[in-house]
């Protein structure tokens, strides 16, 4: 039996909850939440690929593109509206993704992972070498207007998180719809047996191409949002460790559901923040140990907790 799908109402509920948090929790927390949500969009892209059996170690490529689109839009081209920039960032990702996707769609497994990594590292070194792009130090991004509302009119510390949540939850809803579509399942099928997929008249390459671009769009939008949230972009956005972290969060959350990346993202930021706080010089170890324990006891990611919970409830409900 398929469970009744309550994802959309849950998304709306979460959006309201998160928005409320902006007003009712301490500033540092709502900031952390905003960062986590924006970054979890990138993770959502990683998950989208992972469901199709593709691990991208180079989502930093798009993340960085999004960030720099935001940066350049305001600093060089005078486009300062976050709404417009998010759309621009998405378009940027489509263009970039379509170009490199043509090469990438021939690869699977570790080769896909390494090539995506190579691409992001190439972007990284291009930026580092290029003073016109800000070099390795990057540059600052001024606060945007949000759908026409200037930062003077409404405190960006309120408007930016709300905007981020709105964009993110909209994309989450779309992604959920996608996961339930023919493409979503074709992705699962791609992971498991490409020969059969080919014999079901679907081109695996076209599918990979499409998914790569979609994941890129998510990452790019996440990058643009992060650029505004942190007010700064630098090539570190494209560095492989950044991408690695996204994969890490994806696995932390799990790939079973669209909300998993969100759970992973928030938990990760909180854990890291506390690890930094409690063990300033050993936070990596704390993080590593937590990660290890999670993998050993929760191999399906955080999301499996909710599955277990629901299962228990169902067992209880049954006579």
């Amino acid at each position, binding site marked *: 039996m398929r469970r009744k799908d309550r994802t959309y109402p849950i998304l709306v509920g979460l959006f309201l909850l998160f928005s409320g948090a902006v007003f009712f929790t301490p500033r540092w927390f709502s900031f952390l939440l905003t960062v986590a949500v924006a970054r979890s969009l990138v993770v959502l892209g990683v998950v989208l690929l992972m469901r199709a059996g593709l691990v991208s170690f180079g989502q930093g490529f798009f993340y960085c593109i999004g960030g720099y689109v935001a940066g350049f839009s305001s600093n060089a081209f005078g486009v300062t509206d976050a709404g417009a920039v998010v759309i621009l960032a998405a378009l940027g990702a489509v263009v970039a993704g379509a170009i490199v996707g043509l090469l990438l769609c021939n690869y699977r497994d570790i080769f896909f992972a*390494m090539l995506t990594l190579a691409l992001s*590292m190439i972007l990284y070194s291009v930026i580092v070498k290029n003073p016109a792009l800000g070099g390795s130090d990057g540059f600052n991004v001024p606060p945007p207007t949000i759908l026409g509302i200037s930062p003077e009119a409404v405190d960006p510390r309120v408007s930016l998180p709300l905007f981020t949540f709105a964009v993110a939850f909209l994309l989450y809803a779309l992604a959920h719809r996608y996961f339930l579509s023919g493409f979503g399942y074709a992705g699962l099928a791609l992971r498991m047996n490409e020969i059969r997929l080919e014999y079901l008249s679907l081109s695996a390459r076209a599918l990979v191409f499409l998914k790569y671009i979609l994941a890129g769009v998510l990452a790019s939008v996440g990058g643009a949002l992060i650029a505004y949230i942190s007010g700064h972009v630098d090539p570190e956005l494209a560095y492989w460790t950044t991408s*690695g972290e996204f*994969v890490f969060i994806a*696995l932390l959350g799990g790939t079973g559901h669209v909300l998993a990346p969100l759970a992973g993202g928030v938990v990760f930021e909180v854990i890291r923040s506390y690890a930094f706080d409690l063990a300033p010089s050993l936070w990596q170890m704390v993080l*590593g140990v937590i990660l290890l324990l999670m*993998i050993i006891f929760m191999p399906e990611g955080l999301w499996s907790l909710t599955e277990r919970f629901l299962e228990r409830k169902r067992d209880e409900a049954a006579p």
Partner: protein
Amino acid sequence: MREPLVILLDGLVYSSWLFIVSAGLTLIYGVMRILNMAHGSLYAVGAYTAASVVGWYFASGYDPTLSYLVFFTCAAGAGVLAGLIIERGILRVVYGRDEVLVLLVTYAVLLILEDVIKLIWGVDAYFAYQPYAALGRTKILGIPFANYDLLLILLAAGTGALLWFGLNRTRQGKFLRAVIHDREVSEAMGINVTRLYTATFVIGSALAALGGAVTAPSLSVVPGIGVEVIVIAFAVVVTGGLGSIGGTLLGSLLIGLTRAAAVHLFPRGEVLVIFVIMAAVLAVRPEGIFARVKARKI
């Protein structure tokens, strides 16, 4: 006309280092399908061990010629120990799980090891320069080269030959290939898979540590040296074709030589070279130079 020859020599030295550093990675991946992110940390463990041992050795005033043996052995020993702990203590629990998940486990190990190293050795630099300088230098084409570096080429060649022989010409090598392909049926055929896994991981770790040890004398051993090594080792291994020792050798040569050429002729492009080469090789041969044979599925 001497520049091309200098490039060749520089490239060979660099390739040798690349090979020693990546061989363990490809071995572990090839056999266990584990992309060991902690490889770099094991490299760092080797480097630190070597540096400490060398420091102690020279401070005690023993015979310098024996120092090489001593610090190689100690570093490899440290690698074996670390490998054993990681494999028996952690990896064993996650065997059979998804490849990506195991990758994450090694990432966690990397995070932990980085701090363990910091706890043991602190953050200050360690030096082990005596063995590097002690061998003197040779002028080739008027350019002095450190004899130590030149010996590295021999060491790499030796390691490569040994590994190749072990994998392709011995029964243990055949067992490894059986296990690589089908763990379960190998067990049913009487192969002790657990032992083979442990052995592989330990050898791979020892190789990583050895890589660190041979590098230590020409470096200042500082936190983070391991992290830098991982990406480049991955690039080499993927270029050559995962799990193939010959491929790794070729990958090292290709990347090492091009990189040396770039430094001499086009210094600004040096960083890009590794990835461009990798992308170019993969564009032509999607599974690396020596692609693994695929089983017939239909």
